[in-house]
């Protein structure tokens, strides 16, 4: 499988009045053709900043690339000019945003919003672009596209708007699709439809999808590989099976344990006590140490290296060090966690 995207040692900071916020610290991942990589983590863990930096949508300043590279087809896009990026955005990669209620221009017909990119990138005439727009609407499952193409976003329902946003992202047939919490603002039945749609498109076009979410149900449904982010770092990555059945990092355990379960007798919602670290002054050691039930002395002092437990699974945790005591993952995280 061809490698579409490779992120190496990426660090991004924001300069605020309160000081420098190190939102993303030394992040590495890659994405292959036809594959879905899910990035999970709680709010403020750096997921959105990471993917927006891939699209170069962060405003700089206040943002700043501290180090690292983002290779797309082997080319580093971190230092491309705005003009060069215009040809990459939409063309090479498309993006789907979280809230379909606000991500469409309310005063422009949906058809025009879809065809805009086509006219710019593929030099299509208005008629050709409209033909293609109709095709796209059909592809994303909007019924009656001939009528819908001339409507405004407020005439669409939430789910249909997200379909329209997907149609915009797909318009120029990008190889990479970045979906920033595409189902968070939708109700559950629509969520399933949208995920189904993404999977369907992926199998037709071999698109590589980076899926950001904090919903592990979505991950189990849609992802091939998972990267768990915490405090601006990726703390664990692995295939979806590895993350769900052999999680190694206590934060992953916590995430899995916080998933509501139908057969839980008590019916209490589990949570991870504490709150994420302040990234203005990130901890020297493991960012999760302060909330980790198994934290050791070394955790506060040094960031653990990645330890490979298989060719695909890597975990940054001192518990995996041979000198550390053996800690078994809590039992509750597997209950009802079957896919």
């Amino acid at each position, binding site marked *: 499988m061809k490698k579409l995207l490779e992120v190496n040692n990426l660090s991004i900071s924001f300069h605020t009045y309160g000081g420098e916020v190190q939102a993303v610290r030394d992040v590495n991942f890659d994405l292959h053709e036809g594959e879905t990589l899910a990035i999970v983590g709680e709010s403020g863990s750096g997921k959105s900043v990471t993917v927006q930096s891939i699209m170069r949508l962060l405003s700089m300043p206040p943002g700043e690339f501290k180090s690292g590279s983002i290779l797309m087809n082997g080319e580093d896009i971190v230092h491309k000019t705005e003009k060069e990026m215009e040809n990459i955005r939409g063309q090479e990669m498309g*993006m789907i945003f*979280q809230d379909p209620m606000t991500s469409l221009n*309310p*005063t422009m017909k949906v058809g025009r919003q879809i065809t*805009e*990119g086509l006219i710019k990138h593929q030099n299509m005439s208005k008629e050709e672009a409209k033909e293609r727009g109709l095709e796209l609407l059909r592809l994303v499952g909007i019924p009656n596209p001939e009528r819908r193409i001339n409507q405004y976003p*407020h005439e669409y329902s939430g789910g249909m708007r997200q379909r329209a946003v997907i149609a915009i992202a797909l318009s120029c047939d990008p190889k990479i699709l970045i979906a920033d919490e595409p189902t968070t603002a939708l109700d559950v039945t629509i969520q399933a439809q949208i995920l189904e749609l993404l999977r369907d498109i992926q199998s037709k076009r071999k698109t590589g999808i980076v899926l950001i979410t904090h919903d592990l149900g979505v991950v189990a449904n849609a992802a091939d590989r998972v990267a768990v982010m915490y405090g601006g770092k990726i703390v664990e990555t692995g295939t979806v099976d590895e993350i769900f059945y052999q999680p190694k990092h206590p934060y992953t355990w916590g995430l899995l344990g916080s998933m509501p379960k139908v057969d839980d007798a008590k019916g209490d919602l589990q949570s991870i006590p504490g709150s994420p670290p302040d990234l203005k002054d990130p901890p020297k050691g493991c960012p999760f140490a302060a909330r980790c039930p198994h934290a050791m002395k070394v955790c506060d002092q040094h960031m653990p290296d990645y330890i490979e437990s298989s060719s695909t699974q890597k975990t940054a945790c001192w518990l995996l060090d041979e000198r550390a005591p053996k800690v078994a993952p809590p039992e509750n995280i597997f209950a009802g966690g079957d896919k």
Partner: protein
Amino acid sequence: MLKYILKRLVYIVVSLFFIVTITFFLMQAAPGGPFTSERKVPPKIEEQLNEAYGLNEPLYIQYKDYLVNVAKWDFGPSFKQKGQSVNSIINRSFPYSLILGLEAIFLALSIGVFLGVFAALYHNKFGDYAAMIFAVLGISVPSFILATILQYIFAFKLQMLPVARFDSFAHSILPAIALATTPLAFIARLMRSSMLDVLNSDYIKTAKAKGLSGRVTIYRHGIRNAILPVISYIGPLVIAILTGSFIIERIFAIPGLGNEFVESITNRDYTVIMGTTVFFSVLLLVSILIVDIIYGLIDPRIKITGKKED
């Protein structure tokens, strides 16, 4: 659409009825009359004058007569300007006010919107601060002070433009600027904040993610949405320009309608007061209707129909 406009026209007639009624009785309640002056008029003559203009009739008869005449768009003769009807005074003076008003509205809208967008694009940079200092000055300096300053600098010191009167385009420049500055500054601030809102909105990100250039994103997706609050401000803008013109026309000795209006009040020229008031009201009500229609055309979420539930 047609139904909506018809409905609005009915509202306009109802509002006008109330405006005419209230002005009529307020005016009668004010002390003095058209024929009171420092030199006492002999009672016999005053009686004859009252007779001639129908002022000796009971109030309700005067009121009824007036309503009937207004409905026929006839405002009667002026009490003070001999041999002139109110209609002819309006016809003579309104073109000056119209030209001045349109110039001022054009200035306020075009420069105000431009400044607002400019400030938003250079948010928290020098351009933003400069534009906003200008806007704050524009809002805080009253138009009559600005008018005299403009006259002093451009007409008196630099001799570039005529100081007063209204005979050519050059004459209209200073009063139009004086009249436009306050609403212009207000529009600039309005436009800036709504543009900042729009620039931070998700659909601007979507537009950028499509690979559109910064310029296209701003023009096609930004300004069109950001201008909506400014469109709804056009109604109040017309009011600001109208009331501003009362003062500005006096300062620049422009024989416009605002000037006539002020003059008629000091003269207790009943028919002219009523006539100009009704005329200004019609102007205002119609312009608000036009603004509402334009708003419906620009923002597709607002549907113009006669039905309430839409």
